[in-house]
């Protein structure tokens, strides 16, 4: 009953005209960002981080949540209509969605993706509502050793398990940790790697790294390597679903949600595994002519399932972020940065110290889902027009917004030069298949993990055995080990 009361209070906060407007602008902007190639939710939120210095915390978190959510809806539109693989989250949707669009069923694919996102998003938001406060209650009892192990788990999974290569993922992680080291040490105030540059004492802004790695690197990659790439666009058909489409999509949505939701809850991040898993399940369950459609005319289950799994994962990923303060993806890492700008450290205390903010945020997720369904079903034709923006102007425009984000944070021209440098780093990483998520997560989580590690060792009076003496941290260490070793063993046996 307590949860219901707090949720209603959250609705009251999120339902004020100003906050509704923020949610709407966020959803619309998020959809646009998702539709436009070359810019994703992480970039968009990062570019807009400077607003945290003037807009109040609740409004800006509602705004950012709208962008975060909207981009998921918009991304599926692009991956269905455009024959170029978009971001990893929608890669699986593209496989069947593209085939459907080619055989003239783009409308049905878009509808199934949007409604599936809505259903999965709503169910996952209910899960967040019910379980996040419970988890927060338990998480209060965790001490520095447990926190350190949880963060270690998040860092390990983001870098070593997701992505194609463990070594490249770990390299990216260490680069991120190294960037996080620049500036003053949190505990002793000792300056590290500043090279005497006063601008570096405060550390490198998360905006710079995110915008540089994603937006600037994307633009540089486009100008250097993608000149000759020709892309084709599929025709949009009427956005409706037949009875048989409904009958085939509905169970797939629910299965996708069931697969996706648990993946977001554990600090293991990434939507690749749940979306691929959902795709495999749908293909396995399909029979007869429906099975024959997979990979040929395109099967609607192959769009409905992964798209639902994607949204469920993305939504429940807010649970570790809000209750433990552990981000598991690019965008949640940047959301954590936004909280930090307000001097709020997400963690178990968040539900008691900033209750109204958290519940308004959760309520806005329900509202945002409804808004996005409206924005994406009847109005999908409007967003599709964005795909017609010519590449030169699109990327050049993105650079303007990158400049706003990077400069607006600290008003320093030095940051713009740094932005270019990080863009070059991102270009090299992209060219040689290094994942970028570990850099951002490592940079944000690194200093936090270091502080927890040193606090934990202080509690243990300098003895490392403290991590083995406490049952919870020992268990977590075993999980970290299992996450590193098990996939390798399974691969060997195959």
């Amino acid at each position, binding site marked *: 009953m307590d949860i219901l009361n707090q949720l209603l209070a959250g609705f009251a906060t999120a339902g004020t005209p100003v906050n509704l407007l923020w949610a709407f602008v966020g959803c619309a902007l998020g959809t646009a960002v998702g539709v436009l190639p070359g810019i994703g939710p992480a970039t968009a939120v990062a570019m807009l981080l*400077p*607003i945290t*210095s*003037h807009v109040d915390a609740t409004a800006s978190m509602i705004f950012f949540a709208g962008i975060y959510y909207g981009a998921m809806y918009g991304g599926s539109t692009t991956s269905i209509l455009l024959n170029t693989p978009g971001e990893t989250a929608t890669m699986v949707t593209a496989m069947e969605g593209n085939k459907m669009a080619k055989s003239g069923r783009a409308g049905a694919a878009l509808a199934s993706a949007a409604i599936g996102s809505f259903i999965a998003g709503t169910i996952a938001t209910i899960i967040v509502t019910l379980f996040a406060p419970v988890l927060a209650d338990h998480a209060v009892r965790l001490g520095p050793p447990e926190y350190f192990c949880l963060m270690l788990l998040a860092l390990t999974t983001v870098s070593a398990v997701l992505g194609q290569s463990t*070594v*490249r993922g*770990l*390299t990216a992680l*260490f*680069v991120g*940790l*190294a960037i996080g*080291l620049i500036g003053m*040490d949190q*505990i*002793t105030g*000792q300056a*590290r*790697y500043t090279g005497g540059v006063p601008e570096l004492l405060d550390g490198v802004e998360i905006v710079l790294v995110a915008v540089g790695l994603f937006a*600037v690197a994307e*633009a*540089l990659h*486009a*100008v*250097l*390597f*993608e*000149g*000759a790439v020709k892309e084709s666009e599929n025709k949009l058909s009427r956005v409706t679903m037949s009875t048989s489409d409904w009958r085939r999509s509905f169970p797939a949505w629910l299965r996708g949600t069931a697969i996706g939701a648990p993946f977001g809850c554990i600090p293991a991040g990434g939507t690749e595994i749940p979306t691929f898993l959902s795709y495999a399940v749908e293909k396995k369950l399909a029979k007869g002519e429906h099975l024959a459609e997979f990979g040929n005319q395109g099967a609607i289950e192959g769009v409905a399932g992964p798209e639902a799994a994607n949204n469920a994962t993305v939504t429940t990923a807010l649970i570790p972020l809000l209750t433990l303060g552990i981000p598991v993806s690019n965008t949640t890492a940047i959301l954590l940065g936004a909280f930090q700008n307000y001097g709020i450290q997400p963690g178990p205390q968040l539900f008691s110290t900033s209750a109204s903010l958290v519940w308004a945020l959760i309520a806005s997720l329900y509202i945002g889902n409804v808004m996005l369904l409206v924005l994406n079903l009847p109005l999908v034709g409007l967003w599709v027009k964005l795909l017609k923006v010519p*590449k*030169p*102007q699109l990327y*050049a*425009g993105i*650079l*303007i*917004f990158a*400049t*706003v984000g990077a*400069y*607006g944070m600290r*008003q320093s*021209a030095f940051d*713009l*030069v740094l*932005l*270019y440098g990080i*863009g070059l780093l991102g270009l*090299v990483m992209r*060219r*040689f*298949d290094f994942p970028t998520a570990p850099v951002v997560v490592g940079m944000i989580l*690194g200093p936090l993990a*270091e502080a927890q*590690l*040193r*606090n934990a*060792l202080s509690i243990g*009076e*300098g003895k490392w055995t403290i991590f083995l003496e406490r049952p919870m941290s020992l268990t977590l260490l075993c999980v970290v080990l299992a996450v590193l070793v098990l996939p390798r063993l399974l691969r060997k046996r195959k």
Partner: protein
Amino acid sequence: MSFISSKKNQEIILSTGIISLALGLALGAYGISSEAGYAGIGPNFLPLLVSAGLFLCGGFLFWEAMGNGFSHLPDADPSDSTQAQPCWSGMAWMSAGLLLSAALITTIGFILSCALCFVCAAHGLRQAHAGPAQAAQSLGIRSWVLDAFLGLAISAPVFWMFTQFLAISLPGLTQSGWL
């Protein structure tokens, strides 16, 4: 040029770069105090750990680069004309745009420097799309004017929105707050 364009050499250079970065970090870590307090590890612990980790990764990548290579890049073959060549002139234009706007933003203001960046970047991308052969004829004065207009049309409203509505200070050419 052929030395640089070979995939193997690129990968060797990159992994050597990672190893040198690790060594540089380790060197820097020696200048950091090791005062540990109760924890037993001080502010120099993580820097040393990161440089060690990076060194191991760089070493492994170097070993892979000497073997079959680690990335999925196709090996560049200059004789194959169907293969897309990187457009270095476009890259130069975009870099110039970004660095010029960084250098000039405090003197000529946000709107003009961003419009300049837009024009340079868009020109570079047009070159990349048109290919070097047609670039000279097709990119006439019209495209410059169009880009300049678009650049101003994007950066001016962005400037007003951020400075007037969100109260984020961006440098202007004048003190009026509108230009």
